[in-house]
């Protein structure tokens, strides 16, 4: 009897937890709605296939130097050679010919990271604009094996086209080639797999973005001073690419010294602690370059809390709400956006083009510099 009573009590407690969680869940959209949504610019700018790239390109081109534009044009002028050798499998070709609804999936390498909501918005925008069954899928952690397993399951479920972003460059090249050999069109976005025969890539030139970020920081520092570079994962290919570009950029300024690359780890407290230690170890630092979304706001917080605003210039990447707020407060000088929602949007468009037999080529989603002068564009909705 006592045992039954305990079981009942426990079950009730479990229900309370579940209800609490459900209650919070139902109210979850509240903060989401009030968060900055710079991507609304993209959404507004993308009512039609033509309008999306054209209007989005405007600020990008402004922000990009001529070096940035060159590879894009080159890529656009020369359609991917692999694309011409690709043949749709009979099942998919038949569906296209009969005008049957197509099932497309956009596989993202970690649907739990900060970037995923932006990618998802681009996918949802494309689903509406192109009236196609397309969803974002992917593992809940950067797990390449889980992603591959899911892709294999999607093939069994009859997927008609895949856009893939992998956790690191070329991590999924073998399966991409296998899918293409089966006649399933595959494009990549965000993180490329250039060693594969993917039909096209939609995303940013990572090395170039690192180069641009370094130049922005160096110019803000008037070309002199000591710099540390922060990154969540110094061994990841995206980080290596951006750091390579950044160091190339700093090399153009003889009076800029890069003292250290700080591998902050991914946990927020760990990130802040690493920056705190590195700043204490290098008291002459007057510039911090963060190579991604997530060590930039802790760097800004450190600068703000230690009264270093104005003495230490911070430049980073992406448009997370906290980053935008610190730009607004004048703590972070600039952040480079890579238009993530446009990457997934363009990936879906490329897939549809490939399915309809049109030639496809790489799309450079460009680099836009966010600072106080254009911050309001990115803080719309607040």
């Amino acid at each position, binding site marked *: 009897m006592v045992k039954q009573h305990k079981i009942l009590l426990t079950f009730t*407690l479990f229900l309370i937890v579940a209800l*609490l969680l459900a209650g919070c869940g139902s109210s979850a959209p509240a903060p989401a709605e009030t968060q900055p949504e710079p991507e609304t610019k993209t959404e507004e700018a993308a009512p039609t296939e033509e309008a999306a790239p054209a209007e989005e390109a405007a600020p990008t081109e402004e922000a990009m130097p001529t070096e940035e534009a060159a590879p894009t044009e080159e890529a656009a002028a020369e359609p991917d050679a692999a694309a011409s050798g690709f043949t749709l499998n009979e099942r998919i070709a038949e569906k296209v010919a009969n005008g049957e609804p197509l099932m497309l999936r956009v596989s993202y390498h970690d649907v*739990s*990271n900060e970037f*995923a*909501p932006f990618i998802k918005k681009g996918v949802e925008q494309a689903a509406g604009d192109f009236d196609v069954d397309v969803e974002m899928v992917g593992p809940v952690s950067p797990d390449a094996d889980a992603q591959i397993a899911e892709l294999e399951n999607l093939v069994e479920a009859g997927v008609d086209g895949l856009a893939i972003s992998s956790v690191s460059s070329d991590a999924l090249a073998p399966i991409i080639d296998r899918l293409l050999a089966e006649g399933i069109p595959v494009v990549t976005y965000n993180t490329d797999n250039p060693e594969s025969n993917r039909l096209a890539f939609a995303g940013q030139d990572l090395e170039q973005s690192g180069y641009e970020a370094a130049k922005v920081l160096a110019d803000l520092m008037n070309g002199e001073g000591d710099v540390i570079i922060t990154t969540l994962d*110094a061994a990841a290919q995206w980080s290596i690419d951006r750091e390579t570009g950044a160091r190339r950029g700093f090399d153009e300024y003889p009076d800029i010294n890069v003292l250290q690359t700080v*591998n902050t780890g991914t946990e*927020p407290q760990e990130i802040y602690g690493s920056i705190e230690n590195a700043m204490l*170890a290098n008291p002459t630092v007057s510039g911090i370059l963060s190579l991604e979304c997530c060590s930039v706001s802790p760097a800004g917080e450190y600068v703000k809390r230690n009264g270093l605003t104005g003495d230490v210039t911070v430049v980073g990447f992406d448009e997370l709400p906290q980053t935008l707020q610190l730009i607004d407060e004048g703590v972070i000088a600039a952040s480079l956006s890579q238009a993530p929602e446009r990457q997934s949007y363009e990936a879906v468009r490329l897939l549809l083009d490939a399915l309809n037999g049109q030639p496809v080529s790489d799309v450079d989603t460009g680099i836009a510099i966010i600072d106080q002068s254009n911050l309001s564009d990115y803080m719309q909705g607040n």
Partner: protein
Amino acid sequence: MVKDVQMTPTTSPISEKIKNLFLARETGVLVALIVMAIFLSLATPAFLSVRNLLNVGRQVSLLGIMSVGMTYVLISREVDLSVGSIYALVGLITGMLIVMGWGLVPALLIGLLIGAMVGFINGWLSTYGSLPSFITTLGMMSVARGAALLITNGEPVTVNEIQGADPQTLSQFYYLGQGRVFDLIPMQLLFFVIVAILGWILLSKTVFGFKIYAVGGSDKAARVSGIKVYNIKIWAFVIMGFLSGLAGILSIAFLPSGQAGRTGVGLELDVIAATIVGGASLAGGEGTILGTILGVLIIGVLRNGLILMGISAFWQETMIGAVIILAVGVDKWTRSRRGL
């Protein structure tokens, strides 16, 4: 077996006390910490500055708060792998409640209650549910992480006025994580000290603490002695859940932006490592709060020192792992030599 250090008679002669002191696990960890501190102070002058020492104190605080809870769980011969996920879930929910306009006290109470309840579920399933705690908490690690992702829709939770938080509540909330007592001592460190003192009193000076050791030493013997083994273990998990929640709240109060996919990921391993280095055993029945504090400090000082010395990030990971193996290995070896 009940932990011998805890049960040392107070009437032993001075030589016996000195012998016990040298045999105590904490002494070895303390010596290791002192050697590390001396080496680092020679290698880098910044190490011994007040500012850096306070930095280290703050940096280890959240790990320390959770490690106090893990000490209870490990002594009771269980393990909790879900602490990083509870940390994220509670921190993010509390942050969202503040953003939604809740007052500080209700938001904190709900957050801490959720942490304790998840701990209770872990404990119940691992005892009355007859499931190994490794499996229960491995599952809960995913459940709590998934719940955090669902509630936040995968988007970052930013706790500030722009998002809708009440300015007065916000300043109080920020003070919990970012404030400094006497303009010097970080609030996080103060919380750690308070939790450590309370944790030490509960474990070393109360009947409940004695029962935890008894349960971990031999649950059969404890049961025969009339101890409600399952209830004691459940309490250990509740304490763990509560403290994970507290650490999660302090985390988002310190850095007012968190994301369910990143916050607290991998923290469970750091917490277990620090507790084990401090002398707790996965086999149960062993461990002290003092040892855990020293274990936490070893991990914290090592991370801090390696960065101060400008050692490559990849070497840092390797060296921290090696120190964990070395610390536990040396202890096992010396204990076997001493016939313990």
